């Protein structure tokens, strides 16, 4: 039987209460939301928190709303709600692409965006999605809030910028004109982790790619942010040749390991192909040409 090691349980009644508990209990305390990453890790003794602070009752952290030129997503928003959100699908369709293939519908009823990002598992899809969409996250502590870009959020494998006594409360996506985005994933079977996945977003201006975001899942120790490929695309007109070059960068700049899901050369190949596909679909969506 797999059971977590003993811990003390506390149910948070407010965000401030959760932060107060984190401060009071110190580094041995962890926030638990959907629990679909943390509880399996605790069963395997890969995580051994002495205290769990349950935030599942904090309805004020479950929302998707448009505000001040941004889409704001509360940390407790569950995968199923991200999948079904029409505003999110309209402005950032890569979220629905990803949610259709993250785990399975039953798991998606529990897992949350905040938990996914804070788990900082390089194989997890929402991290590359948020990276490509150039999301910023709100981290709250007793001294107030700070806003951190995705490029500074993941500081290593399973490590984030969330400090002790702090919690992630919101994900913000800027609404800019000409946006298109897509997430492409190859998995061995329904609900499995990716063999490789690519997230892309483009912002078109007058037929030219004004800005781009590209990131890869499952092909490195962390989410791979493809800065070189983004630079290549900026100011260029979209074309298959251009996307092929971006794909070559993706193959070169990822660092996959061989495992049961495939050898290194196959994963590099996938990273390149999926990057091209994601860019092609992103551009088609930005130009409203998607078939």
């Amino acid at each position: 039987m797999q059971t977590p090691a003993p811990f003390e349980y506390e149910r948070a009644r407010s965000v401030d209460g959760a932060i107060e508990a984190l401060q009071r209990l110190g580094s041995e305390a962890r926030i638990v939301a959907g629990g679909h990453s943390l509880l399996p890790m605790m069963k395997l003794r890969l995580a051994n928190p002495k205290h769990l602070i349950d935030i599942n009752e904090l309805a004020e952290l479950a929302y998707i709303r448009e505000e001040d030129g941004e889409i704001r997503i509360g940390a407790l928003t569950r995968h199923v709600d991200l999948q079904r959100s029409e505003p999110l699908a309209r402005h950032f369709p890569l979220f629905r692409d990803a949610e259709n293939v993250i785990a399975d519908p039953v798991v998606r009823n529990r897992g949350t965006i905040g938990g996914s990002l804070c788990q900082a598992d390089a194989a997890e899809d929402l991290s590359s999605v948020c990276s490509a969409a150039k999301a910023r996250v709100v981290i709250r502590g007793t001294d107030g809030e700070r806003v951190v870009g995705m490029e500074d959020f993941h500081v290593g494998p399973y490590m984030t910028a969330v400090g002790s006594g702090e919690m992630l409360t919101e994900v913000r996506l800027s609404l800019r004109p000409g946006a298109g985005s897509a997430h492409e994933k190859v998995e061995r079977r329904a609900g499995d982790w990716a063999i490789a996945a690519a997230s892309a977003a483009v912002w078109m201006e007058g037929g030219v790619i004004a800005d781009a975001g590209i990131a890869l899942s499952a092909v490195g120790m962390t989410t791979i942010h493809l800065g070189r490929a983004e630079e290549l695309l900026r100011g260029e007109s979209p074309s298959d040749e251009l996307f092929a070059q971006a794909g070559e960068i993706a193959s070169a700049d990822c660092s996959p390991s061989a495992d049961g899901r495939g050898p290194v050369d196959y994963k590099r190949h996938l990273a390149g192909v999926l990057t091209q596909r994601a860019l092609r679909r992103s551009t088609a969506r930005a130009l409203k040409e998607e078939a």
Partner: protein
Amino acid sequence: MHVSMTVNGEQVSGEIEPRLLLVHFIRETLGLKGTHWGCDTSNCGACVVLMDGKPVKSCTVLAAMCEGHEIRTVESLEVDGEMDPIQHGFHERHALQCGFCTPGMLMTTRALLDENPNPSEEEIRTAISGGICRCTGYKNIVSAVRWAAEHEAAAKQEA
């Protein structure tokens, strides 16, 4: 710690360790053995129960998280000796052999029909993609859900 919740319409409570998983609370504390405990890793779906009407994998939910919530297990499907249409469907279409996945499949597909009374084959296959059945190849399960959908629609028309 103390926990209380509604299970199959009845208020229940117990003194538990915080680490107790919902599946063990249901099976051991309450003695409701209909819910099966399978892979323990949220992959197989045998332990699916409904939490506030939505299917969840009870091996990956703490009993403590269910304080004040409504849980429904497979035991709730039969009412006054009358099987739920989804159970009839599984019977009519021979949607099980060994039966290990069945409680999870029944609860997952009951929730599907509650939300979408007329699901397509693709929608059924997506809904049950979090459950593993090693006997049927899923074909008869899909057929059983269609059977239940059609019979529920017919029953509603008659009413």
